[in-house]
């Protein structure tokens, strides 16, 4: 982070702190808000939250790492989440993961070296009736086939290269 980014970051963080009292029960909501604007939980964020709540950084890390929602590395520009629910499993979600792995050359939990895509497995998103489901950048796609997922990835790649 350069000084400007650091300034902006601290500013945003203060905004979040203003919304929650310095109680232990504010920890998870604060982490969620930080991840919302930063995309992940940085070391700097952990330290500042620790100061604000008066608990040790390791304690904060202990909580954050317990929950799968929190990430500790910057995610890619596009986040592809493959649902791992039962209905998606029996309707072929594993195959989708294989296709995406092949297409992007990364394993679930990783980000492509160019920072474009992050591949994640997620817990059931409740779209079971239209399985298998994939979420790309927050939008849910239903009844996804290998052909469709390839097409979606290609479209996202094109969008990125145009910008």
């Amino acid at each position, binding site marked *: 982070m350069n000084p400007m980014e650091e300034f902006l970051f601290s500013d945003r963080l203060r905004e979040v702190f203003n919304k929650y009292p310095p109680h232990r029960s504010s920890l998870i909501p604060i982490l969620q808000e930080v991840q919302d604007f930063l995309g992940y939980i940085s070391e700097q964020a952990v330290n500042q939250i620790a100061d604000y709540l008066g608990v040790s950084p390791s304690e904060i890390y*202990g909580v954050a790492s317990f929950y799968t929602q929190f990430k500790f590395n910057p995610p890619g520009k596009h986040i592809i989440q493959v649902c791992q629910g*039962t209905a998606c499993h029996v*309707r072929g979600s594993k195959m989708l993961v294989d296709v995406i792995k092949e297409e992007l050359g990364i394993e679930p939990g990783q980000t492509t070296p160019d920072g474009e895509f992050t591949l994640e497995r997620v817990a059931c998103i*409740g779209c079971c*009736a239209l399985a298998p489901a994939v979420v790309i950048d*927050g939008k849910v796609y*239903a009844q996804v086939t290998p052909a469709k997922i390839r097409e979606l990835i290609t479209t996202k790649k094109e969008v990125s290269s145009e910008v």
Partner: protein
Amino acid sequence: MSVASDTMNILYERAEQEWQKIENNEVPVVYIGSATCGRAAGALEVEDVLKRILSANGKGVIFLEVGCMGPCVFEPIVMVQEPKGIPICYAPVKPEEAEQFAKKVLLEGGVWKEKLLGAFSTESYKDIPPITAHPMMSKQVRNILRNCGLIDPENFYHYLARGGYRAFLKALGMGSEAVLEEVKKSGLRGRGGAGFPTWRKWQFCREAPGDVKYLICNADEGDPGAFMNRSVLEGDPHSVLEGMLIAGYAIGARYGYVYCRAEYPLAIKRLEVAIKQMYDNGLLGENILSSGFSFDISIKKGAGAFVCGEETALIGSIEGYRGMPRPRPPFPAISGLWGKPTVIQNVETLANLPLIIGNGADWYLQFGSEKSRGTKTFSLAGKVKRTGLIEVPLGITLREVIFDIGGGVLNDKQAKAVQTGGPSGGCIPLSMFDLPVDYESLTSAGSIMGSGGMVLMDEDTCMVDVAKFFLTFTQAESCGKCTPCRVGTMAMLAILEKICEGRGEMEDLRSLETLAYTVKNGSLCGLGQTAPNPVLTTLKYFREEYEEHIKNKECRAFVCGQLISYHIDPERCVGCTMCAKNCPVNAISGERKHPHQIDQEKCIKCGQCLKVCPPVYSAVYRKSGSRVRYEPIKEKGKK
């Protein structure tokens, strides 16, 4: 009490006016099913197209974004209600068909017969059969889902006009003790899965000493394959919140929390809107409707931990700690959130309360069976033809649910089992499909009712793989606090992996069983105590599949990658290149118009070649052990 009804009467009057715009409409009303599943199928794109065309033609129409109507398989679903008419349900209306739909149905006022699902009534309307006659709907009883798909979930007045908050008013008039008695009489049991009598939990909490008491709505619907709570929260959030008011009043709670999964962003948004409306209209806060009852509700977002569905873990999470369960007793009803008496109820349990109090326990008792009263929502998914959200009286048989409502197995395959209760439940074989769906019967079969997930498995589902799937899930979600669960699930998973990869030995089955009982009996919380259920039920009902994996190195469902191989029959293959084009790893070679081959070294066994090989050739076949499976050749034009 009179102050309360006076305040509410003003609201009801306004609600009635608002509702008349829909019920006695001057211009057509278009209902768009836009819960998460509808959106995934393109409902919002459909809405955009319809809006564009209608405004270009200067036609005034009221659009309602409603929640899930239930038959998710037919999404996107659009209902059209002509002035002073009855809503007519069309499905699926895909984004690419929206333009045609707008012209045909909305501009010309015609009926699109091919897309007709039925009229939203109990009788025929203009020769259109009622939707209740549709095989998916005829056995359903929509009590909890009464408003889902019919009202705008973000419109407070719609809920009021449909009788909303009248039950809460009634409760205030009855007094908290009478409310508890009524719930006791109704026989309501917790809908989260375990089926603990609701009234008893309340009584413990009422009797527990403490200045402040809490009520928590457990909306951490973590079971993979279940989406009932999401649908209710998205389609009718006020019904759950009214239930919270009633429960909060009955137990004497001061604060309420809704603990909702972060994976359900739309449900959270709908709850936020609804809670604000309650505050704005005096239904939350200090001294509600001058009754002396004060209650606040706030939302806590989960952060992705399945174990937080367990009540003590959920409490830990709200308090800002790792979501790890603690031993009970003391039960949360005595010592829960911040050490105060706390009642935790599932979304659907709460959604039942306005029905029970509003209509009385006697009315409620007409639904369901002796020990399992009322109706229950289920999410029907997996290899079933008609997937969706359904609501049925308890005591209905699995066969009725799967075959009558669900329409049987997708692609007319053979049904094998139905999985109830998610990772805590088990697989019930086809031979037991006459089992009634109630708490006791499902438990006696080795499964549990659970929160309502029902996933159908067919001949193409490998039961060992299913057991492995659930164990992979519970093992990853085990919080690690107690050893039987932490180490036991890991050891069980290792054995299952070994079997699926063809390295299993017969002795492994015994170890698996021993481990399963150790984990079941020795674990601290419900997660560990029920985690072995998928393994135990498949071992009990599908033991031969385990044995085939071990002895013959074969997987009869052709699922376990290490035990199967894909081949192309040169006699059948005409070299159309479809398989080669679709192979994700380029393992298929061959010249155009010449038989192709699969490189077994490269093949990842994804099955794409099998899927895309045209049925007129069906040249791709599979081998597993001594089993060979060819797909039937279908002549062109014939189905």
